[in-house]
């Protein structure tokens, strides 16, 4: 832990030294916020102003606000994401443009991403994940933070108390001027998660209390932003998470006192330089992850330590207002040491991304892009993408879009170097994805429908070899066919009553097309833990000082064996939030009640991992706001 902090300080100092190179320029500002904005043809789900939302964590946010399937093992357990029928390692997560998936596992546990570390999230589905990097065969999620230079002082203190020992405290202070902003956030989350559940593994299904499921998380976020003039913006962003989680056993298995600690440090220095026709963006990042998993009864003490150093330079040039060329160069190294490795391993990656975009004032736009990555000196598969969008009506309310891309996912370090059975001959998983969508968007209503098709080849799976030792192999080809529907509507009944409705539905038929396994009876069958149907609905009603939010998700049954003989039933939990605001001139307070699993549904997402029935949480939020409106 001490070493992490030392590194933290060194990196901050290095990045601060960049500030001195800032120079004065008087050209007009080009309004670009993100480095590479998704082209019009791409499908993106935006979730802004995350801190104000009444969700617990990122997995909660995504599962409630979008019809995306989250595989959650319950409190304290792993939480991963599956987009468009792809595996959890096929969703790449980025923090301010920096890939943060574990280099050893290739995937990320969403429970290591507290909400207070994030301002906005963007889900890039299918082909649109190419703009961020490779590996997002299902999609990618961008988690971003930004500053509001109008802010003078904004402070808030939040306290949440809930069932099963939930006790959360958060303090955040954002202060600054038109040139400088600082954002600080500190939090502590405690929960015992000792809820009652029905033990279906025993005769008569007795009601038992969940054991060994305590979670203690501490976190700190510190960000500095400096904007000396309209052309330059510097920032140093960092967050640190110290997490302790007990790992509860499955139903019917006595607790072995398993637990896991994670210490994760993420630091990023950024320089954005805007000119009339161009935009430069330089990023340097350091990510350190220390994970320790302990199972005393099985004498397992597994240590995984990864350090990643990443740099990215992005250049965008606007030929005319509507034509632009973007080039991005990335370079980085992941260094990993694990109890599962015989020695320390590292992986070097460099990549070049070029995107050309044209938007016509005749109502169409198109984009062509490619990415070429080099991994440990070897050329990775070439990744091209193409997309187009056309406004069908002259008022630009109805549009049609199309895109297609090739993509790949390189094997993780565990796949390559696990001792004794890693497979250095593994091929990258290859993806092809295409979609066509229709959108109808105006001030009152937003409707989108996007059918898609994707193919993942060389899908990696761990199998025992001839000698019985498990080893990763490029096993199968998976085909995903689906459609996503979303409908959003805002109704302003009066100044006092506002209603916002949002609903989404995803259908995916995800099947195993072919496999190298002899006698495989899963060909043509739906993949395990991929629901065909996911539906979500959010209704928010603001009436005077009261606010109500109702949330309903329905996740269809998932098969839990590849031959589709056993399944987990559908589940449809709902949440209700009631809040009341007390508003002063510069001070305000919110108090509220949250009822989770409103109908007390008895359900599991992952087999034999129980989830709590109806539970409650009360919150108090005190805000101090000295910003000029």
């Amino acid at each position, binding site marked *: 832990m001490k070493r992490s902090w030392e590194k933290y300080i060194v990196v901050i100092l290095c990045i601060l030294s960049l500030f001195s190179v800032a120079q004065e320029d008087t050209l007009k500002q080009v309004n670009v916020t993100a480095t590479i904005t998704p082209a019009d043809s791409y499908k993106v789900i935006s979730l802004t102003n995350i801190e104000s939302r009444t969700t617990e964590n990122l997995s909660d946010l995504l599962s409630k606000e979008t019809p995306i399937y989250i595989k959650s093992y319950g409190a304290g357990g792993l939480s991963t994401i599956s987009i468009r029928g792809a595996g959890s390692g096929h969703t790449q997560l980025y923090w301010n443009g920096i890939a943060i998936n574990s280099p050893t596992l290739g995937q990320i546990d969403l429970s290591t991403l507290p909400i207070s570390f994030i301002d906005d999230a963007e889900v890039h589905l299918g082909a649109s994940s190419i703009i961020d990097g490779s590996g997002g065969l299902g999609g990618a999620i961008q988690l971003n933070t930004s500053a509001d230079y109008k802010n003078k002082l904004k402070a808030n203190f939040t306290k949440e108390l809930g069932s099963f020992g939930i006790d959360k405290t958060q303090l955040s202070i954002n202060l600054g001027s038109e040139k400088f902003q600082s954002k600080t956030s500190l939090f502590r989350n405690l929960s015992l998660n000792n809820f009652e559940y029905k033990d279906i593994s025993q005769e008569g299904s007795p009601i038992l209390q969940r054991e060994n499921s305590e979670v203690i998380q501490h976190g700190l976020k510190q960000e500095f932003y400096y904007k000396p003039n309209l052309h330059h913006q510097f920032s140093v962003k960092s967050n640190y998470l110290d997490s302790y989680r007990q790992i509860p056993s499955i139903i019917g*298995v006595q607790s072995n006192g398993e637990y896991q600690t994670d210490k994760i440090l993420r630091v990023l220095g950024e320089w954005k330089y805007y000119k009339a026709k161009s935009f430069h963006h330089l990023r340097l990042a350091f990510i350190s992850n220390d994970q320790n998993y302990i199972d005393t009864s099985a004498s397992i003490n597994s240590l995984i330590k990864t350090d990643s150093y990443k740099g990215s330079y992005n250049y965008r040039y606007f030929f005319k207002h509507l034509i632009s060329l973007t080039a991005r160069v990335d370079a980085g190294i992941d260094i990993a040491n694990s109890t599962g490795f015989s020695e320390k391993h590292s992986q070097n990656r460099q990549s070049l991304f070029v995107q050309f975009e044209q938007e016509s004032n005749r109502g169409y736009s198109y984009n062509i892009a490619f990415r070429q990555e080099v991994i440990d000196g070897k050329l990775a598969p070439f990744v091209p993408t193409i997309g187009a969008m056309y406004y069908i009506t002259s008022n630009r309310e109805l549009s049609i879009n199309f895109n297609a891309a090739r993509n790949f996912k390189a094997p993780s370090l565990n796949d390559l170097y696990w001792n004794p059975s890693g497979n250095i001959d593994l091929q990258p998983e290859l993806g092809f994805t295409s979609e066509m969508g229709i959108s109808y968007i105006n001030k009152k209503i937003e409707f989108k429908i996007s059918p898609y098709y994707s193919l993942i080849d060389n899908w990696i799976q761990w199998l*025992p070899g*001839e000698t019985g030792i498990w080893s990763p192999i490029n096993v199968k080809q998976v085909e995903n066919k689906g459609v996503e529907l979303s409908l959003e509507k805002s109704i302003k009944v009066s100044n006092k009553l506002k209603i916002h*409705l949002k609903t989404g539905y995803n259908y995916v038929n995800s099947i195993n097309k072919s496999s190298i396994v002899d006698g495989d*009876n899963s060909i043509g069958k739906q993949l*395990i833990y991929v629901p065909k149907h996911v539906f979500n609905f959010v209704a928010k009603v603001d009436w005077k000082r009261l606010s109500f939010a109702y949330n309903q998700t329905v996740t269809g049954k998932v098969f839990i064996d590849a031959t589709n003989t*056993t399944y987990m039933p559908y589940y449809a939990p709902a949440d209700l939030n009631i809040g009341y605001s007390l508003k002063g001139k510069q001070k305000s307070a919110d108090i509220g009640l949250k009822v989770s699993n409103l109908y007390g549904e008895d359900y599991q997402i992952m087999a034999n991992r129980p989830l709590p029935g109806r539970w409650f949480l009360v919150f108090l939020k005190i805000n101090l706001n000295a910003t000029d409106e």
Partner: protein
Amino acid sequence: MSKNNLYLLLLVFAFASCKKQEIGPQCPTCVEATIEIKYNDVLIGCEGNFGWGNASLSLYDPLENSVTNSVFQNVNGYALGDVLQSMTEYNGKLFVVVNNSGKIEILDTTNYQKTATITGLTSPRYFCGINSSKAYVSDLYSNQIAILDLSSNTLSGNIVTNGWTEEMLLVNNKVFVCRPDTNFVLQINATTDVIEDTIVVAKGASSIVLDNNNKLWVLSSGGINEEQGELNQIDPSTNTIIQTMVFSDINASPSNLKVAPNGTDLYFLNDGVSQLSINDNSLPTSSIINQNGALFYGIGISPTNDIYVSDAIDFVQAGIVYRYDSTAALVDQFSVGIIPQGFWFK
């Protein structure tokens, strides 16, 4: 609020109000109205995935060639547990060791109803009955062999072994125990529960059988490509090795030694099914049944000398059992639960 929105809201509440009955993993095809118990039943132990709680028993009728899956759940009304390790018949009861659940389900062999459950074990592997009131249970992680009191079905003590213990066999009041993470076979006095001797074999000793000359046979895998595997014939009266047969390929991983009911034919898995006679002086050079790309995971020899071999395929789908006759001709094949690995013949 317009009418449409109202409909939408109604639709949502309609969704929310339809209550379901199913909780946890479901298997609609496993549920049969009645399970017919026959005199020549074959039970197939299906390990299930670690941490998924989907261990199960499949029942096969070799006369009708019919299969019933999830028999334990059907008969007893709850799931078997997490990771089935072994099934051992003793005193008319079937002891089903469920490894990660740390328990043994004791079944009545006439109807597969649970008669008792022994809990509180760490990582149990195999059961070895000593007498009507005493048994040993080997363990992967506890560094001990658990001693059971069969009159109360509780733990009554333990024998410190300092490591992983696997298959066990009782001969003349001596229990021979495989120690797979070493190259030892331990010999315990079944009355005093004291380790009296250690027999050195090859690394990875995991299965042990008794032939009709009252000689022991121990199969060692040689570890993970560490040493050459060995098949050792041991005299249980003197604890000495009578003969040793060495697997020439260091990468070979022989496992699952079984003896046919006649007590003279030995079978094991080694990239296919191998067979030899207890009178042979060398290992067979070829398999009697080839894997042909499959991965044989378990083997059992029936009282009628049929050879049952299981294939776990990709370990997340219903496994397959192949039934061959004594001449290695395929008789039948059928789908069972996840990761079939053990057989019990009534």
